[in-house]
């Protein structure tokens, strides 16, 4: 029994899930109607659907971020890439009345190029990931504003807005977008040794290079994919408000995504990753936010509560803290 419990607590997905369950349990006990689901006009409504819906952009970005962090890097430019992709999509719709395919594909190409630019700085010039992506982070929003022309661009295009606000089989479309992205990645990781290469790069780039692995190529793929994910999130967020606001869309989303990845159990030292954990991490952040809102906590306390929960999660994930906690429990039991 004890051995099984110990095995369970050492699983990477356990602690994120425990946190999520705790938050949901709190809602189950103290927020009446939180688990209520309703079918209206063929759409599913309820706080749970809301959580998944609002977590989707962070989930999408966290997918790419997980791989980046697994190589021992970090990508803080994703918020800016969201803005760039959104700006391009907005301009295509509002100014050029482009067909849907172009509106979807061109921003994604631009986003992937942004990621490739990051990887060029990192591989080609040997700049640390945080500084290299900081360049695009600071520059990207300005670039987005230049593309739009320094204002918020509103547009209407039903087929594009469907991506952000539409429903499929009763569920928000963006959930399927996130799921499709994850499925594609899972397929790539299963059928190719990409996952192994990423872990090897993160474990020791030097050793990987000596064993014949093209570390540069792995990093290129990973950062480009991260840019692509940010582009997808940018499309979803832009379609959601049928407007491009390069100054504000996805502000601080890079921090949320990194938080999701780390809460999900992926080490920032690189070398191993946990994709499902990152998704659970995104869900934790969103269910926390939704809970705070539905409980009617005054706005000024929102950040404090968020910080407190993040600290608790950090501590729970620390082996040292768990050991201290475990040392406390049996002592109490014997007394």
């Amino acid at each position: 029994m004890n051995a099984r419990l110990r095995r369970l607590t050492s699983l990477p997905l356990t602690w994120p899930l425990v946190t999520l369950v705790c938050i949901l349990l709190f809602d189950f006990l103290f927020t009446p109607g939180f688990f209520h689901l309703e079918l209206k006009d063929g759409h599913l409504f309820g706080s749970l659907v809301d959580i998944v819906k609002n977590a989707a952009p962070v989930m999408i970005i966290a997918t790419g971020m997980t791989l980046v962090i697994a190589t021992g890097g970090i990508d803080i430019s994703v918020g800016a890439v969201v803005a760039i992709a959104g700006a391009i999509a907005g301009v295509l719709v509002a100014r050029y009345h482009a067909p849907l395919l172009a509106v979807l594909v061109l921003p994604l190409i631009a986003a992937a190029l942004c990621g490739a630019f990051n990887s060029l700085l990192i591989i080609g010039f040997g700049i640390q990931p945080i500084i290299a992506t900081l360049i695009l982070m600071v520059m990207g929003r300005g670039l987005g504003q230049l593309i739009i022309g320094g204002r918020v661009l509103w547009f209407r295009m039903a087929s594009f807005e469907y991506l952000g606000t539409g429903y499929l089989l009763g569920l928000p479309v963006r959930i399927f977008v996130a799921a499709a992205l994850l499925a594609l990645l899972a397929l790539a990781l299963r059928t190719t040794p990409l996952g192994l290469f990423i872990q090897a790069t993160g474990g020791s780039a030097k050793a990987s290079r000596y064993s014949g692995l093209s570390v540069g190529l792995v990093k290129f793929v990973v950062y480009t994919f991260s840019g692509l994910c940010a582009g997808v999130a940018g499309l979803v967020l832009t379609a959601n408000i049928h407007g491009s606001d390069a100054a504000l869309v996805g502000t601080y989303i890079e921090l949320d995504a990194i938080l999701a990845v780390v809460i999900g159990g992926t080490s920032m030292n690189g070398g191993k990753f946990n994709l499902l954990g990152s998704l659970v991490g995104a869900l934790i952040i969103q269910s926390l936010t939704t809970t705070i809102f539905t409980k009617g906590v005054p706005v000024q306390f929102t950040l404090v509560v968020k910080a407190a929960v993040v600290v608790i999660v950090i501590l729970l994930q620390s082996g040292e803290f768990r050991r201290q906690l475990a040392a406390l429990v049996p002592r109490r039991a014997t007394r």
Partner: protein
Amino acid sequence: MKLRVSRRYVPLLATLFVFVAIFCLGGLQYRAFFSLRVFTNLFTDNAFLGLCAVGMTFVILSGGIDLSVGAMVAFSSTLIASLTQLAHFLPFPAIALVLVIGLLFGLAQGAVIHFYKAPAFIVTLAGMFLLRGLGFVINLNAIPVEDPLMVKLSTLGIPLGEKASLSFSACVLILAVVATAAVLGFTKFGRNVYAIGGSELSVLLMGIPLARTKLAIYALSGFFSAAAGVVFTIYTLSGSAAAAMGLELDAPIINAQSLAANYTNEVGVAGKVRFLKNIADALKKARCPSMNRSVTPISLWNSFLPRLNGRVGTRIHFLSSQEITLRISRRRNS
């Protein structure tokens, strides 16, 4: 020998070069830009950013990061404003309290990072949330500071000729830079900071007090960002919990080179502050507030320079890219 020295100072020289270039560019285009007053104002206007960068220097040298500095500036300024205006504290006890809180908060962050082996990025991110939140809890509004002593501090300065003077904030910054340079360059603690950045494991095996040094590093960062909050309050004569958003990422920009090379010099930090500010100043003159963001990253090109080994061609290209950006932003605004 001579070559080695010059290589060590390449990042600093690059920064100075860009600073002088932009300053000259501004001076050529705008009347009265090329004056001692504008130059000393760079220090005053950026004292809070510089102080954050000074604290961040310790953290980044040791291989960590502190994302909470911007929030600490906002929190400290709100707290001082609330204490002096609403609770009728005297300014100096309020300032002392804020500095102690900053020190203790940094210490707490350092403790979590060190003892629980949590990533600095995430711990200080939580710290940022907490401080921003606490700032809003203290007061949602921006509070004007009318305490006569604070007002006096904001106008205090060492006169340097006509019209120009070195303000109190600027003096604090210069003092902090000099003190930090001395500590990093000439004390055991300073060497330990560099050693931790080199290899934490080696530090542990060598018997250098890792825990004490690491805690002190984060405590110093907290202290300096709280001091930055004090200077910010004196500079703006108000306290707002929404102030200094995004500052935490400006400070590492200034420090980019130390991240790259794991060595720095305090003069370099101050130089970069002046440089960043210069860009902001030139832009203000060019009246392009929203384009502000797109020009700042040019400073980051600096981090290329040591890698490029100072090829002249790239430097020329580097300068022209700035001119282009400035010109684009000016054209769009005229």
